[in-house]
């Protein structure tokens, strides 16, 4: 069994069904059908093997046909498919063998009725990539607009309407008479020919502008076209194509005054509106043609009254707008935002009725704030993932249901896209039962003043995942940043480690306040402070029973008794600072991942206080199952091996048994940078059974783009499933390499990782250039007898005359 999710809902514009009760959203290889009443997914159309780029709902030919649910979809796999999405059922597949970036079907918009006995062909205009003629053509103009006869399932031969460098968006007018594209500073408009032969000549005009045009929109009834440009201006040409598209080719007075129209273009007038400060991404006329909707990077939907130019706003959407779709129901429309949300708007008032919440996209922060971790935490029991978002929230996303559950506003701020980032949520941690959360945030200083670090503790309310703030700690480690926050298994203790050289243990005091109902109030206080030689503390972890706390002091691992705050032992040392510590389930092993110039994954035995084994691997994430000794590590592949062996996959998931340095399973993945791993406990109701037995645990992998896959790491079928799905070239792909018949073959492919073969040193330290620094460190019962040490020590003091001996 295997579950995928977290796909982008906003890769291409969605489409409403004819009764406006369903919304069809392109989600990578599939088209998901959502109910507009509930905002939940009803069904999905599966069949395409690559990204679906367009979905076009067949409009009703008569009012009675409104209930019919047919749609055309086009995909990068080179097929156009025809679906009945109420069932859902695939009706027809047209394979044109070239990737389709965009498709519009203008013709059926003006076909009066198909049932008159006279069969008329249905034409679509598609934006394709020319793959065949690569040799002859210049590389620049490979993207073509072509005409496709959908009724006869073929491209109209040799008819190439236009060519551009990059795939552009085809926009069709609501009347179905025109379609156009933008091309840099120009605008090309074609008139759709009337019914007739497929080779009918298509007439074209071009309108010019001085700035790069980003989006165009056609007026539903008049010959008006609006275009937005990168500077935020909206241009409206009225009466375009009066000359070129004139019905009876009469010569009209050319010397007419044409205000605002450039270069003797074929339009009556051109007017400009300027409100947007950045580029316009959304332009759409209302269905009656009285209003124009525009939106852009600043996340404000503007409604222009077309005649007067008066404006109305829906402000503070908090994310750049991508698409605005009108529905057949005049009171409903949808906007897609860049943060993977689709808001359904109640129209005249522009209130948000429902939000179809996809997984939020990862935040991009300026360079100086790198190395803050990926801000992802898994709730093992509920199958949720908590991830930080750009608008200072923690989004809870259900991995099994593939939808957003809730959002917790961590900082009391609103996010404005395009603003400088000054507040960053750095870490999020969840307790094992998921009822408590701890977050840390950093407010960046302005020229050295006013910086602030906050540690916040949250408690879940009575309703699921409605967190309320219980304690704020300002500047918990003076002005030093927090490197890690971890919950104790019992949930009433938290450790926060800082780069400033100390860690603090916070304890929870819960007093039950008797109000109308029983109300638990948690308050967190500092229980202990610890530091080790003033080294920066870079990672922290509690053991499964909670009796040992491991804190990484750069290259050393310090072990503490968290209740009494006593240093138990020091393990060391690695070559570069440790960024990730994890106790391996119930076993007495500890995994430490360090990165930098000499990355390393090392496993330490707690019973022997020594290194068990280590690899030279750059580890992005480590996850360990609660009640078994195996653990999974997400390793980034070195750049060199990327091209040939792994076909664009840049990471591998390695499943280890703690005692065995040979991985038990390997999967290669895409976009591992910034990814996360987590084991999930299985809730039998949520998981279908495989071969009559439910898997014990599931492993969730989330890529750097927040797409995820959940699978059973121990099930052999999982490998085969992933292989059969290998053909589906989704952006996230898991390949069970070597999973079929042992991993030995794939293990042979990775010889470069084994530079450091498993080793067990006899003292808990690496022999370094200067042994006198490390030779005497460690617990006394671990130290070898003095006679041995003495000779080594003296030897190290003596200069070696290697050459002279010869």
């Amino acid at each position, binding site marked *: 069994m295997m579950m995928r999710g977290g796909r982008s809902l906003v890769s291409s514009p969605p489409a409403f069904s004819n009764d406006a009760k369903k919304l069809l959203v392109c989600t990578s290889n599939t088209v998901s059908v959502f109910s507009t009443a509930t905002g939940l997914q009803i069904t999905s159309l599966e069949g395409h093997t690559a990204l679906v780029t367009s979905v076009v709902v067949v409009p009703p030919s008569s009012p009675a046909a409104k209930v019919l649910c047919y749609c055309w979809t086009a995909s990068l796999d080179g097929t156009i498919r025809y679906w009945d999405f109420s069932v859902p059922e695939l009706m027809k597949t047209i394979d044109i063998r070239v990737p389709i970036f965009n498709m519009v079907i203008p013709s059926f918009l003006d076909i009066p009725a198909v049932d008159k006995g006279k069969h008329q062909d249905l034409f679509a205009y598609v934006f394709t990539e020319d793959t065949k003629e690569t040799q002859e053509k210049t590389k620049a103009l490979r993207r073509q607009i072509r005409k496709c006869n959908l009724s006869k399932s073929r491209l109209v031969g040799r008819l190439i309407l236009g060519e551009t460098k990059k795939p552009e968006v085809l926009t069709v007018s609501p009347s179905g008479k025109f379609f156009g594209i933008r091309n840099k500073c120009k605008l090309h408009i074609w008139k759709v020919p009337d019914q007739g032969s497929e080779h009918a000549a298509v007439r074209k005009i071009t309108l010019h502008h001085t700035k790069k045009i980003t989006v165009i929109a056609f007026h539903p009834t008049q010959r008006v076209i609006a275009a937005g440009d990168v500077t935020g201006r909206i241009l409206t040409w009225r009466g375009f194509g009066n000359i070129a598209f004139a019905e009876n080719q009469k010569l009209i007075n050319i010397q007419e005054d044409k205000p605002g129209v450039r270069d003797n273009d074929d339009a009556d007038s051109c007017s400009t509106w300027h409100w947007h400060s950045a580029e316009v991404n959304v332009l759409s006329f209302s269905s009656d043609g009285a209003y124009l909707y525009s939106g852009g990077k600043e996340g404000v939907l503007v409604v222009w009254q077309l005649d007067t130019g008066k404006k109305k706003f829906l402000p503070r959407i908090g994310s750049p707008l991508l698409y605005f779709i009108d529905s057949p129901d005049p009171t409903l429309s949808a906007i897609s935002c860049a943060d993977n949300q689709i808001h359904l708007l109640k129209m005249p008032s522009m209130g948000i009725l429902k939000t179809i919440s996809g997984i939020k996209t990862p935040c991009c922060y300026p360079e100086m704030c790198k190395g803050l971790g990926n801000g992802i935490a898994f709730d093992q029991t509920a199958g949720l993932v908590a991830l930080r978002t750009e608008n200072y929230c923690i989004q809870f996303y259900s991995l099994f249901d593939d939808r957003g559950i809730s959002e917790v506003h961590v900082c009391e701020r*609103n996010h404005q896209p395009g603003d400088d980032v000054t507040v960053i949520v750095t870490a999020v941690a969840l307790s094992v039962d998921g009822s408590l959360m701890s977050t840390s945030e950093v407010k960046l200083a302005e020229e050295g003043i006013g910086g602030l670090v906050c540690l916040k503790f949250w408690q879940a309310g009575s309703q699921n995942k409605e967190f309320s703030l219980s304690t704020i700690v300002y500047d918990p480690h003076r002005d030093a940043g927090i490197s890690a926050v971890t919950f104790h298994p019992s949930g009433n203790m938290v450790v926060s480690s800082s780069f400033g050289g100390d860690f603090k243990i916070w304890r929870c005091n819960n007093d039950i306040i008797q109000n109308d109902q029983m109300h638990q109030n948690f308050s967190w206080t500092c229980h202990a402070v610890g530091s080790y030689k003033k080294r920066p503390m870079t990672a922290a972890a509690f053991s499964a029973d909670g009796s040992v706390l491991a804190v990484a002091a750069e290259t050393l691992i310090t072990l503490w008794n968290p209740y009494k705050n006593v240093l138990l032992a020091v393990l060391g040392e690695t070559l570069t600072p440790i960024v990730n510590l994890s106790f391996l389930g119930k076993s007495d092993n500890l995994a430490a991942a360090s990165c930098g110039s000499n990355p390393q994954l090392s496993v330490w035995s707690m019973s022997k206080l020594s290194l068990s084994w280590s690899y030279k691997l750059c580890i992005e994430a480590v996850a360990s199952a609660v009640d078994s000794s195996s653990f999974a590590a997400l390793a980034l592949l070195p750049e060199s091996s990327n091209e040939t062996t792994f076909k664009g996959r840049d990471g591998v998931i390695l499943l280890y048994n703690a005692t065995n340095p040979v991985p038990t399973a390997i999967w290669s993945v895409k976009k591992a940078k910034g990814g996360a791993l987590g084991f999930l406990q299985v809730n039998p109701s949520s998981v279908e059974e495989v071969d009559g037995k439910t898997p014990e645990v599931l492993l969730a992998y989330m890529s750097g783009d927040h797409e995820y896959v959940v699978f059973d790491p121990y099930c052999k079928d999982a490998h085969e499933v992933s292989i059969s799905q290998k053909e589906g070239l989704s952006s996230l792909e898991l390949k069970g390499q070597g999973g079929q018949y042992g991993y030995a073959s794939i293990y042979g492919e990775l010889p470069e990782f084994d530079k450091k073969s498993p080793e067990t040193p006899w003292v808990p330290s690496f022999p370094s250039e200067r042994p006198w620094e490390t030779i005497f460190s460690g617990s006394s019962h671990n130290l070898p007898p003095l006679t041995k040490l003495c000779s080594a020590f003296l030897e190290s003091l003596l200069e070696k005359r290697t050459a002279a001996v010869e």
Partner: protein
Amino acid sequence: MAEIRAEEQTLAISKTFLIKPKLKPKARTLPQTPESKYWSSFKSTQIPNLVSSISSLSFSPSPPHPFAAAYYASVSLFSPLSLSDGNVSPSSTISSFSDVVSSISFRSDGLLLAASDLSGLVQVFDVKTRTPLRRLRSHTRPVRFVKYPVLDKLHLLSGGDDAVVKFWDVAGESVVLDLTGHKDYVRCGDCSPVSSDLFVTGSYDHTVKVWDVRVEDSRSVLEVNHGKPVEDVIYLPSGGLIATAGGNSVKIWDLIGGGRMVHSMESHNKTVTSICVGRIRKENCGDESMEDRILSVGLDGYMKVFDYGNMRVTHSMRFPAPLMSVDFSPDCRTRVIGTSNGIIFAGRRKGKENVESGGGWNVLGFESISEPERRGLRPTHFRYFHRGQSEKPVEGDYLVMRNKKVKLAEHDKLLKKFRHKDALVSVLNKKSRENVVAVMEELVTRKKLLKCVSNLDADELGLLLMFLSKNATMPRYSSLLMGLTGKVIEMRAEDIRSSDPLKGHIRNLKRSIEEELRIQHSLQEIQGIISPLLRIAGRR
């Protein structure tokens, strides 16, 4: 009640966030317990100028529970109602005594008052007319206590320095029983609240004896040894326990269990002079109940409240003089404490006038009478159409909810309009430093603070410098304000040099920073002294 939103429910993506100051840390110690809240809710009134030590205090059992205080050779009656008004003069005074009054006691109906004095005389007065009705003379030495039995209106109990306890027939002015057995001064006694025949007396011979008038040969039924001269003894309301005070301790004895000591409370550090029973109303999960406490006062000036159910001291209060006597009114609204220098500390609690605990001390439970439920107005009643805005909704009404309007302060409005400098100036004028710092932090987040500073004109810069000179060294804000101060002086050096008022602000600033430096220096010295000690302590 069903709720309907005024507009159809639409979700808001973004909220309006006000600029709020940072939260202050809460105290780690718990706030007042409900119990200490109760005991400190008695609003204290001093009744001064009563010449000498208040030897005895007693509440009348009949409402409105006036109390009598015995001091020197007189007894004064006070009305608790007048205490609320701040009137502290006695309502009446009895002064027909030839010697110092040692003890007073009301009869159970509150009409008669018995008083004993050091001449050996016990007198019974009519409370209203203040005339001595009976004079009981039989004691040969000073009488130390006199007590009316709780359930008996005809007899009286007294004891004195002649070590004899006398049981009187009041009407005939004759002694019914002479109870001999104590070997030293008898100082105190109490009558059982459940039986008219039983009573206890305490003496300086360290013993407390339980007497029964039905026993023929006038011997004590039970005897317990307190271990110290007994200053006071009381029956606890159940009648099975007694509490004795002597030395620094208050001990509780179980009489039914044969005189077994239940607990000894030793939280006073001087002699406990007087104890009485106090009551507290407990609210447990909705229903009210009364619980009894022992109030004890001592020469150390403390009043302690002892919960003998849980055996712990639940409240203690300090008074500025040695305390001699204490009593608590049966309606639980007044407690009075007498000191050795003639002051009565009377405490009165606000409450409904009709709060009555029924039959006084005998009723242990408190029955709460359920109030008749108020019925909501029906549309059949004419007042239904006269309801105002403040009308509360009734069950079954449909509530039309409207979103609460967010109140924006002036600086919030200005920040919303991105008028950053105006926001800073407006909040500087408002004199609330938390808000000033909060606005500054918001400006830092918007990366606009330094631009604001550079745009301030001379007057506004003066405001800012004044604020900085006052607050820059406050530890809560110093991390931001010290940095800002440096930047302000650096950026606006020329403006400051050219203006005299600004120079004055800078001088103030310099002074406060020098002061802070001195403090830091001395703190460092202290740290230098302490840290070796800590290190040595850590080694052990």
